[in-house]
């Protein structure tokens, strides 16, 4: 029982923090400082708890074996959970740090924001450990409902609400589709338990007859549901509009939080539960991965609105991460399959920091209301605000995949795993490379604006709050450290590797 408390502790802390913030706001309105303190404190606590409890690779942490809630397990704390928890909490932490600079000048309430954000994070954390379809669905909803709200958080801003409603309508549509898929799986296997489902399906697949059509349909429905959440082409349509419309710190969060949580969902459902069916979706996902990265990059090329540009680039990154899944699906060797999943995880970690950081810079520039997200606002940033420009450069280079930054390793690992499989999957590796070169164009265009163009005459002064600064440094530091500092790189490699192995060897 003690174990179960520990198992849930980070999750509970996050939710507790959210509720605490609501209460604070209720009793002491207009106390942003306390809210920030509570939010940051809670998240730090949760992060600490995650790292202390573990399980960490090599049998570390207070719960080296992990633990689970419910019998049969609804929620489990394993290496993957801990890893994703840590990432998601970090995302929450950074998103929260970036918020005040943007919200306060626009008179948007911090407490609601913080609470909603924390709820969303907790949804992701729930997915990370979910072992039951119902929990996963609840987690997904807990993740996305606050997400819709956050997207529309600047409720007096037409773009924000427009993005929110597009996001909401399409999101709910995809949720319904996804849910139908769950229902089919449930109906066919008679269970909501991932391991049970895996067993049942293994039995079905081991028979010589072809896959029951209901399962094929279920796969399609589930795939569409998750592909929508990760914003894979052709289910990505919401991304540019939602990203552009959302308040910028929210955009930052949206670009990483739901995406990584959705990948967690994929890992739990497709990799863990539907593992026996992986051969069925390999080809389609492979093709979609190729299309996704290419379309994302192509669309980003000429985009002058940096938020939209980053939205398209986020689509492209989705494509890269999907390659890891394809590796998992196509590999004969379990070790290689695990390498694919490791690619997904490592990429997610790296991507979280660098993308969030990049959006944070955009947000920082918009501290003064009225600053648009046009690329021209970056003109001459290197001359106006040296440090943010420098950090942005680092983050963009990392997104491009220039070594020795985090993004480079992320790509390298995914590519490596794809090459391990060989054949068509190796072609994806080559495609990643070509895409990365294409992506360099628009990422570097931002650098061009920052350093190689004169600032506009009416360019406002850039002033950045302490929170944002801290967050920015953290994100950049993570991006650099993951790439350049062997202990960190090694630790994350080890963790992702162990989590992947554990997940695939179930």
């Amino acid at each position, binding site marked *: 029982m003690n174990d179960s408390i520990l198992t849930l502790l980070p999750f509970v802390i996050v939710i507790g923090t959210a509720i605490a913030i609501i209460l604070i706001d209720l009793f002491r309105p207009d106390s942003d400082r306390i809210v920030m303190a509570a939010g940051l404190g809670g998240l730090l606590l949760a992060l600490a708890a995650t790292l202390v409890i573990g399980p960490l690779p090599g049998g570390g942490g207070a719960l080296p074996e992990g633990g689970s809630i419910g019998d049969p397990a609804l929620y489990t704390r394993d290496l993957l959970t801990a890893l994703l928890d840590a990432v998601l909490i970090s995302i929450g932490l950074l998103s929260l740090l970036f918020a005040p600079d943007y919200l306060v000048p626009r008179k948007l309430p911090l407490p609601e924001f913080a609470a909603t954000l924390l709820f969303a994070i907790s949804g992701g954390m729930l997915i990370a450990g979910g072992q039951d379809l*119902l929990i996963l669905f609840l987690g997904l909803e807990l993740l996305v409902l606050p997400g819709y*709200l956050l997207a*529309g958080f600047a409720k007096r801003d037409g773009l924000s609400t427009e993005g929110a*409603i597009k996001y909401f309508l399409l999101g*709910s549509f995809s949720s319904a*589709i996804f*849910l139908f898929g769950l*229902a089919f799986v449930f109906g066919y296997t*008679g269970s909501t338990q991932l391991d049970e489902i895996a067993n049942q399906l293994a039995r079905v697949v081991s028979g010589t007859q072809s896959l029951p059509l209901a399962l094929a349909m279920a796969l399609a429905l589930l795939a569409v549901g998750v592909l929508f959440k990760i914003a894979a082409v052709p289910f990505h349509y919401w991304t540019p509009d939602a990203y552009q419309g959302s308040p910028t710190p929210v955009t930052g969060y949206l670009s990483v939080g739901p995406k990584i949580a959705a990948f967690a969902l994929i890992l739990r459902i497709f990799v863990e539960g539907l593992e026996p069916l992986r051969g069925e979706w390999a080809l389609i996902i492979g093709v979609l991965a190729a299309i996704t990265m290419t379309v994302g990059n192509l669309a980003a090329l000429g985009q002058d609105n940096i938020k939209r540009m980053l939205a398209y680039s986020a689509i492209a990154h989705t494509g890269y991460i999907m390659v890891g899944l394809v590796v998992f699906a196509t590999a004969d060797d379990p070790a290689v399959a695990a390498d694919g999943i490791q690619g997904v995880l490592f990429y997610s970690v790296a991507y979280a920091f660098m993308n969030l950081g990049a959006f944070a810079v955009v947000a920082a520039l918009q501290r003064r209301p009225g600053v648009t997200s046009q690329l021209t606002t970056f003109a001459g940033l290197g001359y106006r605000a040296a440090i943010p420009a420098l950090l942005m450069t680092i983050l963009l280079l990392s997104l491009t995949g220039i070594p020795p930054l985090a993004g480079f390793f992320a790509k390298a690992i995914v590519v490596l795993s794809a090459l391990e499989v060989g054949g068509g999957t190796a072609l994806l590796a080559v495609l990643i490379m070509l895409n990365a070169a294409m992506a360099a164009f628009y990422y570097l265009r931002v650098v061009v604006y920052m350093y190689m163009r004169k600032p506009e005459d009416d360019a406002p002064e850039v002033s950045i709050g302490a929170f944002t600064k801290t967050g920015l440094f953290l994100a950049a530091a993570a991006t650099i450290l993951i790439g350049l500092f062997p202990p960190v790189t090694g630790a994350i490699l080890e963790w992702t590797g162990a989590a992947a192995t554990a997940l695939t060897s179930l």
Partner: protein
Amino acid sequence: MSQSLEAYLVLSVLLFGIGTFGFLAKRNAIAMLMSIELMLNAVNLSIIAFGAFTPELAAQASTIALFVIAVAAGEATVGLAIVIAIYRIRRTPLVDEYASMKE
């Protein structure tokens, strides 16, 4: 017929299809939301149907359906809140008039 899983499932699919069509065809945000509710109910119907034909799943299916209903309620809350918020600005619930952001 009432004792055949397929019948209920087909019924569910039909409802889902109607919902889908509604979602795709309607212009009014709230009507689209209603279509989504139809779709969710269709799913619920299939869940219950699965449960009803498997003795050990009956209770679980009902429970899941309950959860889905609750989630649907939450979703409706959020959705309607967003609709109201945007209506304040745009003065219309018609989504095809929300196209400030496009390429």
